[in-house]
């Protein structure tokens, strides 16, 4: 993985010093709350409902064992022994003391981590396919480009005060696991003929006005990546609305100008870029790619998985549901379910973090990934190690065989932690876990992505859930609106609302009715999403609102 140069290290050290000084001035009354606000946000610090919350960047979702140990230690020392994985490959601490945050950040800096630009109206942490580098059929690993973008966007002098937040995602596979079409800029590595380059999407996003992005350039040569981003960002910085924060995202600008006009502005700007704008030469790309190379053992005898734990049904179930094929023979990708029944989706205790870090050192080349689906991944596991790993994961309560099923819920923190929330989301996840505790039934239902947000800001990405649940406030009571048919994979679509919001106590029951409808109407092998796309929402609506 990418290791910091001395310059990288110096920059984050100086960022800690800067933030320490800003916090000191704020606490000493020399800096107003309003001035401090934009400064702390740019360092990922929110003043939340109960206590300050800090968002730590996990660039493109990749962590070393050492980093995960440090994240665990920090949760013990500064928080209540746990941390929360977000839907954008960040990690959050929820119970901090403001005056301790500078010390926390300096501990993070020791392991090359930071909270820079995890919030605020700037270019945020760049996310990637969580199976980057190990997925079968990948065109190229997106992470070297993510790191190049991370560096370019860090403390960018021109683009630190944009109209609104700005999110970039990169994928290197045709199967899009990075949700590129719902990002401000989505970058897909493509190979239309012999040359590899990028297809650039712009103006996608969730939140109040969910929009699928549009293609602004079908093919961009690699060396132009940063200059093209610069052109888009400059047009956005100058033309994006600043009078209304709900209309300030780039998607609104793209929609109001129309994609043709917006493209013309960007292309003209791009042609005009002065000679000093960044060009990515081959050697820069190559040396960045080298940093992400791993050395695998060559495993000759193809161990048959069927010979492992031969009669152990629980192992086989886990193997089928929570592991995936790796591009290298003899290896397997293992997803750790951070969605155990009764636990808040995406929450990890310090004990679990240390445990996973140790398992990564032992079984997965010392690396861990976090997915935007709020799970952890050990991506480099030898097939022969799977039984030992599985047993250890059971001890850590991270082996629930529910990956990709209904209970692998994506969920924002909601009313319990978030000051913007209309309704609780964790309790809904809980309700659903209680209602659907039969693992055979879950497996029979097959792949279902259930996503829950506690308000219109859509941090739980409910618009693109096969089933989406949105918390709404009705005269001080918590109600929930249900959408069906959203998806963020290759042919992205937004879910459709099935009808009036549902009372809190009835959400899981309603989901049950929806799933019964699916089971009774599906063709053999037809997934939930396929059925909804085929027959529309009407039959579901009729079943729910009888």
């Amino acid at each position: 993985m990418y290791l910091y140069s001395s310059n990288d290290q110096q920059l984050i050290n100086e960022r800690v010093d800067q933030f320490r000084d800003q916090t000191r001035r704020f606490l000493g009354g020399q800096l107003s709350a309003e001035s401090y606000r934009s400064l702390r946000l740019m360092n990922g610090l929110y003043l939340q409902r109960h206590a300050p919350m800090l968002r730590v960047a996990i660039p493109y979702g990749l962590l070393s064992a050492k980093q995960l140990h440090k994240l665990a230690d920090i949760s013990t020392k500064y928080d209540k022994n746990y941390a929360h994985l977000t839907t954008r490959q960040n990690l959050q601490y929820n119970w901090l003391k403001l005056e301790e945050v500078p010390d926390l950040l300096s501990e993070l800096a020791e392991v090359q981590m930071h909270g820079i630009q995890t919030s605020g109206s700037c270019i945020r942490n760049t996310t990637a396919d969580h199976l980057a580098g190990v997925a079968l059929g990948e065109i190229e690993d997106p992470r070297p480009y993510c790191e190049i973008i991370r560096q370019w966007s860090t403390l960018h002098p021109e683009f630190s005060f944009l109209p609104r937040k700005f999110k970039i995602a990169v994928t290197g596979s045709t199967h899009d696991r990075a949700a590129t079409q719902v990002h401000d800029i989505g970058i897909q590595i493509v190979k239309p003929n012999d040359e590899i380059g990028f297809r650039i999407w712009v103006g996608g996003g969730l939140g109040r006005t969910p929009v699928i992005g549009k293609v602004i350039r079908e093919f961009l040569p690699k060396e132009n990546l940063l200059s093209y981003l610069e052109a888009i960002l400059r047009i956005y910085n100058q033309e994006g609305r600043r009078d209304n924060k709900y209309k300030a995202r780039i998607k609104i600008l793209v929609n109001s100008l129309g994609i043709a006009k917006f493209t013309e502005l960007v292309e003209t700007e791009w042609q005009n870029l002065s000679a000093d704008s960044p060009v990515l030469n081959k050697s820069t790309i190559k040396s960045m790619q080298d940093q992400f190379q791993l050395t695998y053992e060559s495993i000759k005898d193809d161990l048959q998985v069927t010979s492992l734990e031969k009669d152990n049904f629980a192992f086989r179930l886990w193997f089928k549901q929570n592991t995936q094929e790796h591009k290298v023979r003899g290896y397997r990708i293992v997803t750790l379910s951070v969605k155990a029944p009764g636990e808040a989706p995406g929450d990890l205790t310090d004990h679990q973090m240390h445990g996973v870090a140790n398992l990564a050192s032992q079984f997965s080349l010392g690396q861990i990934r976090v997915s935007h689906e709020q799970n952890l991944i050990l991506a480099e596991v030898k097939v022969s190690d799977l039984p030992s790993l599985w047993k250890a994961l059971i001890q850590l309560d991270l082996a629930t065989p529910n990956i990709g099923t209904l209970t692998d819920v994506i969920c924002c923190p909601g009313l319990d932690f978030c000051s913007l929330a209309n309704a609780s989301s964790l309790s809904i996840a809980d309700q659903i876990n209680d209602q659907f505790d039969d693992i055979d039934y879950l497996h029979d239902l097959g792949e279902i992505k259930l996503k829950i947000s506690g308000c219109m800001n859509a941090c739980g990405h409910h618009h693109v859930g096969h089933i989406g649940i949105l918390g709404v406030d009705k005269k001080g009571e918590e109600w929930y609106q249900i959408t069906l048919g959203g998806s963020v994979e290759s042919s992205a679509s937004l879910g459709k609302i099935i009808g009036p919001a549902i009372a809190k106590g009835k959400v899981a029951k309603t989901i049950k009715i929806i799933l019964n409808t699916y089971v009774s109407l599906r063709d053999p092998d037809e997934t939930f999403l396929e059925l909804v796309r085929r027959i529309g929402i009407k039959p579901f609506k009729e079943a729910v609102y009888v």
Partner: protein
Amino acid sequence: MSRNLESRSSESQSSVLIDGRVAEDHWRNYCPIDHENLNDRKDGIIFPFEYWLENRSECLAYNGPKGVACKNTDDISQLKPYINELNLICIEFPIATDGRAYSQAHLLRQRHGYTNELRAVGEIEIDQLFLMTRCGINAFVFNEDIDLTQASKYLTPFSVSYQ
């Protein structure tokens, strides 16, 4: 609170932080309403952007140092023909979080080849001096009465950068 350019009294003497040093500000704003006679003056005068464009020959004929004050919505590429005539360009930050003027600064320096004083006015926070400097701004006038020597220490919180 932000005060706009015009509200700076044209005769008041104030200080400017320029190239890291505190200096007396010798520039004053031209008041188009008075339509004053420029023939008898030789001091630095800052013309509003639109006034400059509409009365370019009159402005260009002025004998003293010439400056232009832009709002962050002005199309600064229109200054391109006069880039070598201008001794000062002011760009405005009406609120600290409005980042449009950063792009203006970048373009003036990198695309239009402007090399004289580029001054930030408006709501300038000391924590932003670094970014502004890196976009090519080399002079700062603050709305609030702050200790400029102290502020100058915030020009370079970072010794490294990526861009």
